């Protein structure tokens, strides 16, 4: 049966720092109690693990002092910099990139667009009459019917207008 007095002793004292009386009391109890024995063993191992861990120390390298002083000077320089310069240092890259993009877009707008070709008057059947292909096809107005166009005239008008704007 687990003895709460023993586990409390283990938790109240530093790992591995029990008095001799406590140790002999725990050991005599632990001989017959596997739970307390496990807890006692675990606390001894925990103490040794902690000792092993704190025995590991990293020493400062010979360059550490130089490194700290360089970092300190850098921070002081930054602190002394005027606010605008600090802002530029922080956002300079983004602002520069934006300026470059604006210049490129302006250049493209100025020089990239080709002049509009002049539209020559085409002497085609579509220019001869006022009916465009769309009007012939979609306009329900009876005016079309009233013009008395033949089928061949209608088709000629459609193909002539397709040829003229070349969009099909």
């Amino acid at each position, binding site marked *: 049966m687990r003895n709460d007095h023993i*586990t409390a002793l*283990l*938790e*109240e004292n*530093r*790992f*591995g*720092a029990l008095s001799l009386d406590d140790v002999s009391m725990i*050991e005599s109890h632990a001989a017959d109690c596997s739970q307390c024995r*496990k*807890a006692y*063993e*675990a*606390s*001894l*191992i*925990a*103490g*040794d*693990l*902690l*000792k*092993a*861990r*704190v*025995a*590991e*120390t*990293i*020493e*400062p*390298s010979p360059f*550490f*002092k130089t*490194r*700290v*002083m360089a*970092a*300190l000077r850098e*921070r002081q320089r930054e602190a002394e910099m005027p606010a605008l310069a600090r802002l530029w240092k922080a956002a300079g890259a983004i602002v520069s990139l934006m300026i470059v993009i604006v210049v490129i877009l302006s250049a493209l707008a100025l020089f990239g667009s080709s002049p509009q070709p002049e539209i020559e008057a085409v002497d085609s059947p579509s220019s001869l009459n006022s009916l465009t292909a769309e009007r012939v096809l979609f306009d329900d107005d009876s005016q079309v019917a009233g013009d008395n166009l033949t089928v061949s005239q209608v088709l000629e008008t459609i193909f002539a207008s397709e040829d003229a704007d070349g969009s099909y």
Partner: protein
Amino acid sequence: MAAFSTGARLATEITHASELELVSRAREGDEAAFEEIVRRYSPRVFQIASRFFRNRSIVEEIAQEVFLKAFRELRSFEGRGSFEGWLSRIATNRCLNELRSAKRRPESPVADLTDEQVDWLDNHLSDISAARHQASVESAVAADLAEKVLGTLSPDDRLVLTLLDGEELSVKEIAAMTGWSESKVKVQAFRARRRMRKAVEELLKSRSQGERRKTKT
């Protein structure tokens, strides 16, 4: 020649200056005085940081931040306690913050025990009632194992156990280093011991389960 001797004299003066003199000169912007502070106290700051971190670059980074913060806050040092104590407090809090911001702790310490770690536990258990060998305690295997177990604890538990049971500092010293009350240190230590003991019990259980599996195969 005269400049050289003046420089040498100043350097000697700084090397032998008291803690308060150095602080007061550093406050006035004397770089050499602050350089001497870094030289004098960096072993202590490294010692504190390496209790919690094993990677040299992390330890150096933390130590550098500690000195930069100390420089910024030199004016707040009133000279009532020792400068080393004041610096240790900055270092301890910096480590605690770093532990808190580190990624989530693993759920269990028992996964992935190496053969060397199992051997260390075996040897240690067989030797538990006899006088234990210091050499084996200080081995890198034990330190790896310790890191595994400590990694499962909360930053506060880890801090209090490392300083109180590992480094054997007093409750009062830890209270000064962390800014906690002495009763908080005691309560934290009591709970942390229970959690660490249970983590080691888990470790031992997994070791014996592993051994049983090995025997079966």
